[in-house]
């Protein structure tokens, strides 16, 4: 029954940012982890490479079909030169502009770009973040080959540029939110697109639980706090996933019954029903107090 990553640890691992929309309710967004950003980039680079090859074939096909290869070969070459430049510089910008801040790679991994200040993503921010991509991705790739191959006078320039590029390349590893320079300059975040899934509420009583005659006194419900309530909710969720063990449930039910001094056979005979009813009653009691502004974080806190 012990599934190692409980959801609290999952949540603490994620880095979040808070954005205040005009409606005044702060919203949390999960920052995209480096691994998925990298995968998205790799996928996009793959697409770029494929589209470059595709362009060559299409150009050749067009010029061969038109019989232009002899007289107009130069045009094909210049289309190719400009096309490569455009694909390289505009691929990310273009998709992030028309696809609500996602490139194909980002979409595949459920990521998108948003503006850091909570405004709509502007063109300038997109331009800036993608111009910087040049020194983070493309130029380091190109410079390596250039610096070794050419061996000419401008090799020193390549090496020097590569030194600078290294700063940009390693930047995310030093940044606390592992933002790349493009994100800083463009004023953007890359976030995980949130997924909304509403599950069945554990406090909704099953018919079996409703029949059982279990009730608690206010004193019995004043012992545990929100932390224990949430832990119990997790256990009940595991029951739904068939990951809970009957013996474990019995032990938990008994521990609770001992703690709150509940006297009755239910914790031993029908531990699940007992836990469900206790959860609902406990939540009701705590929520009631919450309305009066009294929070009880856990059992150690005295109210």
């Amino acid at each position: 029954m012990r599934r190692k990553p409980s959801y609290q640890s999952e949540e603490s691992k994620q880095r979040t940012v808070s954005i205040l929309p005009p409606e005044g309710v702060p919203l949390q967004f999960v920052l995209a982890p480096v691994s998925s950003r990298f995968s998205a980039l790799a996928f996009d680079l793959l697409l770029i490479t494929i589209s470059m090859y595709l362009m060559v074939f299409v150009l050749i096909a067009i010029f061969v079909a038109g019989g232009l290869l002899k007289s107009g070969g130069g045009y094909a070459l210049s289309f190719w030169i400009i096309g490569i430049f455009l694909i390289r510089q505009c691929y990310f910008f273009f998709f992030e502009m028309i696809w609500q801040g996602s490139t194909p790679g980002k979409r595949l991994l459920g990521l998108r770009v948003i503006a850091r200040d909570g405004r709509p993503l502007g063109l300038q921010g997109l331009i800036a973040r993608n111009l910087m991509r040049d020194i983070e991705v493309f130029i380091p790739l190109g410079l390596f080959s250039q610096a070794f191959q050419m061996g000419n006078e401008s090799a020193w320039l390549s090496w020097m540029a590569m030194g600078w590029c290294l700063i940009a390349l390693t930047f995310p590893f030093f940044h606390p939110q592992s933002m790349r320079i493009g994100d800083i300059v463009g004023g953007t975040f890359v976030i995980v697109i949130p997924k909304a899934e509403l599950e069945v509420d554990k406090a909704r009583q099953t018919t079996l639980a409703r029949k059982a005659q279990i009730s608690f006194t206010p004193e019995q419900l004043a012992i545990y706090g929100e932390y224990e309530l949430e832990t119990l909710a997790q256990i009940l969720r595991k029951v739904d996933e068939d990951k809970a063990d009957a013996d474990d449930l019995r032990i938990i039910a008994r521990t609770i019954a001992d703690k709150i001094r509940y006297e009755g056979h239910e914790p031993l005979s029908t531990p699940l029903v007992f836990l469900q009813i206790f959860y609902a009653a406990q939540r009701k009691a705590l929520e009631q107090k919450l309305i009066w502004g009294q929070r009880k974080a856990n059992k150690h806190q005295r109210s």
Partner: protein
Amino acid sequence: MDTNQSPTSSAPSAPRSVQFRKEREASWRELEDIVQRVQNKSLSSLDDRDLQRLPLLYREAMNSLSVARATALDRLLVRYLEALCAQSYLAIYGARRPSRRMLWALFVAVPSEIRKASRELLLAILFFAAGIAVAWSLVDRDPQWFHVFVSPQMAAGRTPWATTESLQNTLYESRQKSGDALSVFASFLFTNNARVGLLAFSLGFLLGIPAAILLFYNGLVVGGFLSLFASRGLLIPFLGWLLPHGVPEIFAVLLCGGAGFLMGRALLLPGPLLRTEALRNAGLRASLIVTGAIFLFAYAALFEGFFRQLIVDDVLRFLVALLQCLLLLWWFYLSQKQEQKDLAAENFEQEPQTWSLQASPLGGGK
């Protein structure tokens, strides 16, 4: 401690949040469905009814979220509402497709950004001019220096050891090349220059040092050639050869350098802002300038690739160079006029033209 507790709370009935959820769940589901469609397609794919419902449902959900955060102890419910609100927020405020008006605004915004960055531009001119001056004086004294500044590929025979006639011929050779060969030349020039310009900008955030080096280096090359042709008394023809495409091209190089300095300064002297914020402000401004520069590079490459080979008359060349200057000035004039118009409109409406956090794109919410 039990004073506020109602006596019924001990009965096994449902907590408040269950009722809360029951009352609102239908509208959350409706919002979820609309937002999902926006995510898959776009905001404009919604029909009128959904478009009207979206902001209402969104506000309702935001309301539910703040209530749930304060009163509900069902973590899953709060998480669901957080995700739902975040999705809807992204759908409504996240991104807007650029319209033709935005592109026009971008076009006229470039010169005004350039004017605001005039100090950086001046610095860029300074470095470029220093490069020219250094190369000119050194080559003038000892022609050997020419090789240091100009690589053999770039010189293409135009060295201090070439005869004056051959140098003159390079200025006036109207290569009998076909259009397609010229187009290759032009496109190569464009991509190459644009790449160098982008480098000056994007490396500029490193305190502007790489931008300074690139500007100085480009100045050295130009200075080397200037000195060489001046020593043969070919300065005026050389300028006639250089300026028609050089006006937009060198201006674009200076712009990219200036954009780099803008970023470098933000990092070095962020003022009262955080460095991240200063860099972002500079980056947004610089990106506009660089976009303008890229278009200038493309424009210049067309002239360099085609025009230079086709027109060989000195006077005509200088006229074209003058025309280029006038075109640039016209661009600046256009932007200033637009700026004044915006300012007037702003004063009239008492409302900024730019999108502010208070103004919702769906109306209301102010």
